[in-house]
């Protein structure tokens, strides 16, 4: 493709290039796409998607094979060559709208090709639109629905009634269009009710149109780093989308389940299994051509997890509880405990319940974790833990504490914790606060740290995975 005179990824320089197009320089157009794509790839890289040169080349070669007029084909082609995991795909989707299509719209407006949806906004007959949309949803045609969603956003946006919150706007437009889903109780599809799945699809399109409009107005991506941001805001965001926590943990769960397998097979161990070697040598007339090795058995750790569920770690404990949830599926010998002022075993709840909501509800209701004040009392927790399960601890067991070590000014009883750590083979502490805040205020992390085999700050899934590598991966201490 002809190289354009536009240095890529330079917004100031990209603007004149667009102006050139506006001035009617048709030659620049292929270069325009190349530059646009390069800019897109650059944006992807900035978001942490690994886009190599070979991938960009692939994208160009692949684009030559599909029709560019088909928007979905164009997008899928780029996605297949550039975004190579689910997370990358998510970032890709968000960026694609911004970089590619907004660029087109920007060009269109510069060229003076006013989109009729802005002009016609007031003139659109609402009644007519309603009927059209209902028909489109019944027919289930995606293209039609997308166009009408755009029209609907324009029609209602033109009236200047934007609440600024996309979710609210979607519902407002839906109500204004009088779109109703089939009532759940009715069996037969009623003539006026619409298929709920399709209606949801239409809502999604409305949402996307609104997002696009918002992106265009503010010239910035609303949640700029969908996944990365999620990682960062774990400790402070109590309004965390639970489903998102779960998705990440579910992913980790699968990783955990297969973790350590690579060290399991026969291949890596160096101990020769004489009996099997002799047996194999019969095939070759008694000449031991192939050595057989003894398989290596993986370490089966017994894990005790102590989880702080007090208010000072509210947001983190959602994360921790879902981690516990995941750990329960991954390790057979796992006992979990929750504590605030007192400690209680919650293993059974985790084993019996599947839904995360039920679990957190039952822990709040049934576990005898708080007493009078509702503030964490680490000292008392150690004492109780020692008396209740102290005898079960042996050098094969691993104790993991999830907590912020904020004692609310009470006696930390560090020697008691020392005795727990002494009986257990390994002790780890996961703190949901950044290391910077440790030992400030009532945090007594320093008192407990010497007894632990490892202390970790842990408030992102990435940190958690690192920790899991230590526990399930290569055992540091072999009893």
């Amino acid at each position, binding site marked *: 493709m002809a190289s354009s005179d536009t240095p890529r990824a330079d917004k100031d320089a990209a603007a004149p290039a667009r102006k050139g197009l506006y001035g009617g320089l048709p030659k620049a157009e292929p270069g325009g796409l190349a530059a646009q794509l390069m800019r897109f790839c650059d944006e992807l890289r900035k978001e942490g998607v*690994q886009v*190599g040169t*070979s*991938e960009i080349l*692939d994208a160009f*070669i*692949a684009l030559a*094979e*599909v*029709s560019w007029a088909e928007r*979905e*084909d164009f997008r*899928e*082609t780029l*996605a*297949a*060559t550039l*975004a*190579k*995991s*689910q997370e990358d*795909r998510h970032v890709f989707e968000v960026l694609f709208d911004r970089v590619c299509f907004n660029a087109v719209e920007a060009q269109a407006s510069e060229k003076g090709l006013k989109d009729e949806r802005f002009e016609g906004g007031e003139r659109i007959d609402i009644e007519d639109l309603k009927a059209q949309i209902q028909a489109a949803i019944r027919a*289930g045609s995606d293209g039609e629905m997308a166009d009408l969603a755009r029209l609907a956003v324009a029609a209602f946006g033109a009236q200047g009634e934007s609440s600024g919150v996309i979710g609210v706007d979607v519902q407002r437009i839906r109500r204004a269009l009088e779109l109703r889903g089939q009532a*759940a*109780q009715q*069996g*037969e599809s009623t003539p006026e009710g619409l298929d709920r*799945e399709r209606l949801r699809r239409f809502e999604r399109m409305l949402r996307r149109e609104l997002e696009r409009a918002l992106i265009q107005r503010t010239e910035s991506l609303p949640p700029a780093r969908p996944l990365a941001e999620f990682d960062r805001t774990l400790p402070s965001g109590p309004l965390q989308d639970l489903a998102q926590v*779960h998705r990440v943990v579910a*992913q980790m769960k*699968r*990783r955990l*389940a*297969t973790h350590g*397998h*690579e060290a*399991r*097979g*026969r*291949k890596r161990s160096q101990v020769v299994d004489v009996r099997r070697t002799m047996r194999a040598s019969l*095939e*070759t*007339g008694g*000449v031991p*051509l192939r050595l057989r090795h003894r398989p290596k058995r993986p370490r089966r750790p017994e894990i005790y997890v102590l989880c702080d569920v007090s208010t000072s770690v509210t947001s983190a404990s959602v994360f921790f509880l879902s981690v516990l949830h995941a750990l329960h*599926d991954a390790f057979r010998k796992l006992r979990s405990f929750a504590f605030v002022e007192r400690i209680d075993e919650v293993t059974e709840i985790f084993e019996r319940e*599947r*839904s*995360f909501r039920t679990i957190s509800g039952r822990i709040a209701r049934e576990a005898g974790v708080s007493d009078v004040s509702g503030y964490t009392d680490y000292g008392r927790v150690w004492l109780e833990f020692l008396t209740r399960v102290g005898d079960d601890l042996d050098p094969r067991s691993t104790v993991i504490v999830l907590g912020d070590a904020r004692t609310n000014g009470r006696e930390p009883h560090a020697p008691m914790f020392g005795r727990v750590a002494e009986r257990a083979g390994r002790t780890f502490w996961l703190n949901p606060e950044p290391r910077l805040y440790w030992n400030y205020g009532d945090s007594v992390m320093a008192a407990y740290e010497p007894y632990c085999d490892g202390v970790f700050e842990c408030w992102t899934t990435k940190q958690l995975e690192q920790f899991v590598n230590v526990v399930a991966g290569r055992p540091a201490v072999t009893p």
Partner: protein
Amino acid sequence: MAGEPDGTVAPNSLEELREGLGGAGYLASESAALVSYLAYRLGKPVLVEGPAGVGKTELAKALSRYAQRRLVRLQCYEGLDEAKALYEWNYRKQLLRIQAEAADTGWDDVQEDIFSKEFLMERPLLKAISAQEPVVLLIDEIDKADQEFEAMLLEVLSDFQISIPELGVVEASTRPLVLLTSNNTRELTEALKRRCLYLWLDYPDAERELEIVNLHVPELPEAMSRKLIEVVHMVRGLDLKKPPSIAESIDWARALIVLGATDIDKSVFDRTMSIIVKHRTDLDVVAERVGVRLGNGILGHAESG
């Protein structure tokens, strides 16, 4: 459909491939068809990821049926190594040869002789590379194999050649269509991903799954298959250890035919639930959530009981 000189079929357009796959019994989603088409045109391997039971392996089989190419399958597992994936020398035969000729042949001759193609056992990868007619190579569950194995694949995937120290380099005479599937249990290496096109397959939406079930079990009445899909989708919505796959929806539909059921009501559901749900704890959850709704007649147009 364009017939190639070697008797295989290659698509000329995206539509053609989609229809061809449909004819081979696979209703491809937009993206699956597009990425397969690109794989054909660019000759690049495709990495297919997605939850278990969404038809990843089936896509490869359908492609081989459609293109009338032989399917060469390599099932990955822990500890899979070159000897099982690429080639192996047939030691026993070599030994016999040496013994047979021991007396009057010089070592040089024997050595020349025993490292020839005759004593080479072809494993799936070498078989796919050295095949005379183009094949479809399916590398199944690549995430189960070790990381070192991935590194070994790189040569095959990017240059379509295998180096055998004793013989030299075996180059592909025809380009195989390569599909790698992964359940995403571990992150694959960047190097491998870079060489592949990426396709994420997810559970199909209700309409498509209905089409799939109708295609495979045409005897099932429309109303029942619609209800079956509705139930399956609801079950998938629950937080289960193992959500039902497409193959299991089809199995369930077949089972209903065998049982001669005329409607999916609570008793039928209770009896046949184990076809789509295969975990004790999951069974409890499903019985509680879905069974009750079926009993109340909330779902579809079920009459209670």
